[in-house]
């Protein structure tokens, strides 16, 4: 262990940790209610900047050999995840007095950062747990509503089951290969004896559970609806992105063997179809987004059928496009209590109350539906191109037809906003922070719409 490497390589994590400590001290030191938003924001910005800097400098370092190493792909993933937290922070400003929200959020992001640098299953497990545990608490922060408690509990229990599955998978992997290194997973895939196969399946199922792939999706709609809007936005974007990016790290060096194709393609396909079908009849906006995110988890796992460089490219582009679009939709949701914001009826006539918000939500929905020219289309194209390049044309066609099922419910949101009459009351202009959050999402979206090549060439 080299002290200097530990200091530079872990810079994003250190900044996050300092931020958490600072917030704790501030909380202890002051008895008045305060906004901790500016502090948190500065911390997140600094951490994202540090991560991006490490990436752009092609920095690589190994502060803890065998456990924790930093490479450009990991730094990029950190930059993406921390960057997506910034709009979440901005939109949450008024809803949580006190630092609890910020501390929990930063801890969760810290966990996600550990994931992208983990070299062994131990660090990976630590990262996943550190990322998930604060979110259970975050969901519970909205506990003034009775259904919140239920949703949080469900999330906790199912999440715990996921943890247990992961641990079992890890120990089987250890049993089959005698190693805790992440590379042991790739080894286990090639091994093919029953223990190794069980290990692969269990680890994969744990990831499916965290990413909400059918049939392990049951927690998502309830948890999404139970939490307050910023927390839902965080779960739908940052957590999902982190799980998928970690899975990409886990799959480094793996060419998917035919025996695994059924698991890697069938469940995601079911997820796409089921998620899209169920989303059609939801009357709550966040439940709809939950089912949509279940479908999107399906598309994302499709990417793993493809070969290595394309897989990374597809997943990174997809989580960025998908995350930005979801954040944009959540940021622009009309104000009100969580229950009011949830109702689809509340969106009716939004265009006349607030054209800016309505147009941005519409763009987000079209992008999620994968309709060009929005980045969601290029992302979908990337995924299915890789699947076809890998020779799985049949699966790709099935997945594309599954994605067709999703168009209707996204259009329904636009129909509500533009084509239905709503109450005539004018929407209050958004707070400056929320407006800033929408800009933080909008500018990269415009960049990716006009020049998708800019990002793709850099991956």
């Amino acid at each position, binding site marked *: 262990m080299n002290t200097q490497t530990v200091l530079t390589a872990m810079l994003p994590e250190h900044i996050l940790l300092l931020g958490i400590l600072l917030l704790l001290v501030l909380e202890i030191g002051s008895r008045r209610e305060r906004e901790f938003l500016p502090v948190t924001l500065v911390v997140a910005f600094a951490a994202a900047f540090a991560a991006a800097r490490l990436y752009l400098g092609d920095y690589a370092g190994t502060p803890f050999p065998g456990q924790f190493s930093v490479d450009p792909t990991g730094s990029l993933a950190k930059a993406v995840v921390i960057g997506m937290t910034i709009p979440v922070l901005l939109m949450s400003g008024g809803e949580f007095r006190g630092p609890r929200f910020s501390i929990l959020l930063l801890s969760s992001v810290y966990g996600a950062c550990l994931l992208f640098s983990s070299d062994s299953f131990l660090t990976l497990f630590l990262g996943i747990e550190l990322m998930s545990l604060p979110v259970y608490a975050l969901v519970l922060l909205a506990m003034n509503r009775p259904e919140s408690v239920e949703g949080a509990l469900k999330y906790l229990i199912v999440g715990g089951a996921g943890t247990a599955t992961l641990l079992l998978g890890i120990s089987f992997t250890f049993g089959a290969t005698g190693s805790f290194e992440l590379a042991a997973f790739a080894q286990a895939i090639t091994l093919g004896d029953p223990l190794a196969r069980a290990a692969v399946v269990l680890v994969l199922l744990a990831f499916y559970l965290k990413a909400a792939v059918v049939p392990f999706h049951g927690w998502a709609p309830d948890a999404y609806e139970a939490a307050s809007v910023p927390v839902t936005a965080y779960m739908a974007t940052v957590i999902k992105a982190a799980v998928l990016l970690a899975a990409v790290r886990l799959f480094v060096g793996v060419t998917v063997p035919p025996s695994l194709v059924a698991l890697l393609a069938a469940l995601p396909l079911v997820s796409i179809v089921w998620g899209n079908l169920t989303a059609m009849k939801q009357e709550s906006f966040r439940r709809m987004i939950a089912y949509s995110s279940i479908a999107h988890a399906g598309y994302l796992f499709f990417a793993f059928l493809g070969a290595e460089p394309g897989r990374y490219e597809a997943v990174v582009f997809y989580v960025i496009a998908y995350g930005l679009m979801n954040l944009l939709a959540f940021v622009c949701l009309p104000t009100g209590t969580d229950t009011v914001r949830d109702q689809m009826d509340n969106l009716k006539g939004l265009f006349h109350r607030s054209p800016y918000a309505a147009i941005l939500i519409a763009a987000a929905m079209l992008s999620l539906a994968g309709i060009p*020219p929005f980045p969601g289309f290029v992302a979908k194209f990337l995924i299915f*191109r890789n699947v076809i390049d890998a*020779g799985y044309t049949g699966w790709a*066609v099935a997945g594309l*037809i599954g994605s067709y099922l999703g168009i209707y419910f996204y259009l329904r949101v636009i129909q509500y906003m533009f084509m239905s009459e709503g109450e005539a009351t004018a929407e209050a202009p958004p707070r400056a922070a929320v407006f800033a959050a929408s800009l933080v999402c909008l500018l990269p979206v415009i960049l990716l719409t006009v020049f998708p090549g800019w990002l793709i060439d850099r991956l």
Partner: protein
Amino acid sequence: MSEAVMLNWILFLPMLGIGLLLLTPKPREDLMRGISFAVMALQFLLTLCLYAQFDADVKGLQFETRLPWIADWGVYYHVGLDGLNILLVLLTAFLGPLVVAGAFSAIKKDVKLFYSMVFFIQFAMMGTFIAQDLFLFYVFWETMLIPMFLIIGIWGGERRIYATLKFVLYTAFGSILMLAAVIYLVYSLKTQSGINSFAFTDLYAARLPLNAQILLFGAFALSFAIKVPIVPLHTWLPDAHVEAPTAGSVILAGVLLKMGTYGFIKLGFPLFPGATAAYTPIVMVLAVISIVYGACLALVQNDIKKIIAYSSISHLGYVMLGLASLDLIGIQGAIIQMVSHGLTAGGLFLMVGMIYERCHSRDLAAYGGLAKLLPVYSVFFMILTLAAVGLPTTSGFTGEFLVLMGAFNAAWPLYLAGSSWPLVLACTAVLGVVLGALYMLRLAQQFLYGESRAPHQPLSDLNLREKLILATIVAAVFALGLFPDSFMHKTELAAREYQERVMAQPAQAWVMNEPAGRNAP
């Protein structure tokens, strides 16, 4: 300004128009209308300049721009004009200002959004026509759905939500399969020749095995056939037309339907010559069915918009017949017929819109004897009706006559060789002309003659704006009918090239095996 730059200006002017509209303060609706008209008129003028500069004796693309867009995948921003798209670009730019002017009095709600969406769809349509890169083409192709969804859904009639969802879901289904085909096509090109490219010219050169060609052709053809629409995939069209606002109907009939036929002539047939050779008979049969079936349905409708909608199905059947005949005259006739249909159907929808603004009814039975009530209106209506029927000296005659001539040209050698079905098809297509006269004259007779009645009286005849709009269209109809030569000359080389591409026997015969280096699916 060089011509290539001018073409880019033509493409992006509508986006500039949206920018200007966004800057206009909300209450200044008249200013918005003025801006929209001015931008569209400018676009038309620029297009006219380009049309004049377009050299009919040069093969291939002119006024090209080619810039890397997604360099990693070989996707280029590649636009240019050739003989296949030049007339359609001209038609799109020509209808633009008329659509805008036609909506001056009809659209009172959300004016800013409306003209923004008209600009947006104009941008997407223009882009689809001039794109020379498959990825770019697909992006523009799909983008068209968004503004049309909103135009029908916000400013449409009573069942607008149903109609607009049906329109989008129908078209999107075709597009999804086309997307899979696009990816697979580009992938096969890469495995076959090592080129990572989406350029049309590279893809034309790809020689796929016949079984792959058939599947890919099926996916492309389904998407295009829905857009045309070819019977039996037409059911979205009457709903969309009837519920759309006038401007929406004009864009739909005038330009959007041509996307399907343009897709066939630019991509569907020439990309897959093997599959085309195998499936032209089916395409021809479906085209003739569309001609006759569309005409028969038009004959029994009582909603004026529906009559014109079904007549569109019939008229686009001719286009498909001409394209599938693979005879030079037939192909050129099909292109002329596309433009002609854009003018006549667009004009008729504008006229229906004008009477609807006055009487708020589209029910044919509610009207009669308008010739006495609205003499100027009736003259224009009669001219456009006769043009749609295909009276000589109008554009409709040129188009239909050439297409039928092409069909007979193609059928005759086959008849001499002993197969008579192409001749039967061609003769059946002629039946469509008779039916066409029947339903259009039935419409004109009930509408213009007989006892004078209208749901809302007294009626005011056309005002100056409306007269100017219709006079422009009528002038274009006669120009195309009286001097088809100059227009056809511009398309001739491209039509020849298309013909060669589709008829060409590939160097290696179509082998029934997979390209080398492919895993099992």
